[in-house]
């Protein structure tokens, strides 16, 4: 399958296994900034690790420190390789804006409706710098 998504934060081509979350998440208090583990006790994907994934977010729960957690993940090498979001969360994405300003490798972020995210779950997904999202043939 192939899709073209709006680019929220541009980046290089990226590829990785897609982790499509099934519930909204707060990065602050929900993701361990040192490891990328999902630590929110009430989250259905608790215990999964977001590092190196194409992370699909059906929603985010706002915290003004979400950007700090994402920046810390980028700095620690534990960030997703790309982020797909149903709705742009300016506070979370600010972490990528700052990572780019710091000169650190910045994963791209694209807008993808939640309804289209689950079809990618568990598959290896390629995200092009032009916004094309494709899955590798099985």
């Amino acid at each position, binding site marked *: 399958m192939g899709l073209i998504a709006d680019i929220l934060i541009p980046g290089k081509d990226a590829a990785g296994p897609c982790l499509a979350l099934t519930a909204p998440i707060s990065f602050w208090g929900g993701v361990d*900034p*040192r490891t990328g583990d999902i630590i929110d006790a009430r989250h259905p994907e608790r215990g999964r690790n977001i590092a190196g994934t194409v992370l699909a977010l059906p929603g985010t729960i706002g915290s003004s*420190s979400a950007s700090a957690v994402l920046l810390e993940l980028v*700095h620690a090498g534990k960030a997703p390789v790309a982020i797909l979001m149903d709705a742009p969360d*300016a506070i979370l994405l600010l972490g990528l804006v700052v990572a780019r300003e*710091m000169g650190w490798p910045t994963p791209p972020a694209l807008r993808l409706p939640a309804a289209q995210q689950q079809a990618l779950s568990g598959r290896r997904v390629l995200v092009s710098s032009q916004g094309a999202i494709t899955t590798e043939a099985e």
Partner: protein
Amino acid sequence: MVELSPEERAIAAGTQGEGAAMAMRIVAESARLMGAPKLIPVASAHIDGALYHGDSGTLFAEKLVEGGAKVAVRATLNVGALAPAGCAAIRLAAHERDMAARMMRAYEAMGCEPSWTCAPYQAGHRPKLGSDVAWGESNAVVFCNSVLGARTNRYGDFLDIACAIAGRAPDYGLHQPENRLATLVIDVRGLSQALRASDVFYPVLGTILGRTAGSAVAVIDGLQGCTTEDRLKALGAAAASAGGVGLFHIAGVTPEAPDLATALGRQPPRERIVLTAPEVQAALARLSTAGPTERVDAVAIGSPHLSLAEIDEVERLLAGRSLKTPLYANTGRHVLRPLEAGGRRKALEEAGVIFVADTCVVVTPILPEIAGAVLMTNSGKFAHYAPGNTGYAVTYGSLAECVESAVAGHLVREPRAWA
């Protein structure tokens, strides 16, 4: 699409140095992501970003300093992870302590005031009614909007300092007058006057406000003649920890609500909630997590940081007695200074009060690690964050109950009708 002025574009391209350029680009990118059409000048900033969460935040602040960045407007600092003004011992490992100290120095080097308080509005930083500012720290944001009538969104880490350096913020949200009108009425007139005029009611009401309003703007009806500045501070802090509240109005009390109709913009409310005694009692019960126990291992007050008036009240309640359980009094330098001058700090410390200045017990490890420990507090914000951040279970009570419990060494309740 955000449109920058020629001057803003020039700054973003580096005419005022790389630090100023980086800050302007961050503000402009945020405006783009938020859908703001342009940037607006801000009169001041309150910076929450100097609290250490990890090394990347320290490196970010130091890169701004290396780029020659200076704040363009008055910028006060929220709490840090260390306490240069002294008092309680902080159990941070050497690396974290070093990086937290570097971070605090970097923010001061950019010209931020070393206020190190979450109650800057009681430390002399009070923006004018109707002015646009860029504030961080949820309780400070809600106080600034609601009680002072200045206009700010919730500016989080990185964006707060970027706005302070650029002297600008994205034009959206609560900067725009139409978004400041209430759409929800919370009617508390059915509750007793005694309850409405007691300190202990306000964190409970704030919790209800946070849960029911979310990020919507509410106007509360029925508190005329019942509020003090410290009660409004407690209300806002609880509301902002229980929900996404950035602004509330109180009819006949707060500056944008001379009456109910004005606060609503003369439109009918989308929703009207009449608060009843059982709902208040349910919210009160949710503030405590310790269950039916008389155990109290520590008492913590001062989230937001205590005012001088609140310390006066602690002294009055103590009445010269000593404490069996430590009472952590979280406050700022603006309060410690006058206390020291009068010898009052020493007297309180001799009675068993532990002052925590520049920081607080839920953002950095201060409370001793004790299995099954219970923290007693009169703060809705401490009640919300202490279980997750400190491992202590919480018992919520009034300031008088907190002081009496600390004197007795176990929970002491006073009779009160929650109706």
